[in-house]
């Protein structure tokens, strides 16, 4: 790692904070996606089917 000068603490804190927030939003997004897809698969496995989702123009 290169020397970051007298304000290294600010630079490291900035990159660390952005890494944490970015990782947080990635994990949250993927966890939410996983929850919804597995619940959908579960309902479909129970035999519950959408009535006319393939109909043109239908609002989801």
């Amino acid at each position, binding site marked *: *790692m*290169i*020397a*970051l*000068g*007298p*304000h*290294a603490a*600010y*630079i490291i*804190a*900035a*990159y660390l*904070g*952005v890494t944490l*927030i*970015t990782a*947080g*939003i*990635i994990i949250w*997004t*993927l966890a*939410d*996606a996983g929850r*919804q*897809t597995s*619940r*959908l*698969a579960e*309902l*479909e496995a*129970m035999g*519950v*089917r*959408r*009535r006319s*989702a*393939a109909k*043109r123009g*239908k*609002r*989801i």
Partner: protein
Amino acid sequence: MESPLDTETAKKMTWFDRIAHPGQFLMWSRYVLLPLAVGSALLFVLGLWFAFFNSPPDYQMGDTVRIMYIHVPNAWLSQFVYALMAVSAIGTLVWRHPMADVSMKAAAPLGAAFTAMALFTGALWGRPTWGTFWEWDGRMTSTLILLLMYLGLIALWRAFDDQLRAAKIVAVLTLVGAINIPVIKFSVDWWNTLHQPASVFRADGPTMPPEILTPLLVMSLAFTFLFGVLHIVRMRTEIFRRRVKSLERKRALEGAKTS
């Protein structure tokens, strides 16, 4: 699980209707996700290498210029995401497009995160360069208002069970709030401020040397690709969430009939 259009229906639709139909969107978007995610990861690796190992300290700010490589991309995305939400809001209100409100809802938390990161990194960059973490000037205050607007819109989505009704109200408020975007952009020209004026997108070209501009552009692309990936994943999730709700409602109704 996914329901592409049947051939008869697809023939009658325009190319835009086809790619933006929820079923079609689910189909094509999964092929875009991997290249976008890999592209984003590679750009981050390249951008960070430039930022820390292949770019000089600034002649005035020294090494704190390296904060710019994460501050500017997040600040750019904080405004870009809101502009995207405003376009989606028009899609909801004018064309009542089924994917417009999905796009709006999926983008809001990402916009809030990018705005929070822009404010956070800006404060950490401001302290060593200006001598203060915060100043109530035009650019910083309008960006803080942007964060509050994102949080308000997220809260509004959550306040409604009926997401189609929520979409119309959120769309109107999103369009009203869009006035803040040019205010953020031109705040550095309109008012006295600690914040520097535009230095990349200018009529006379960027004011920074290529060795500093290169990591900035690469990191901006990396964050933009990341936004693309997360936005698509969140849009897909929102479609699935609405399908889950509709199936759960159907199941409850069927249960009530049989009992």
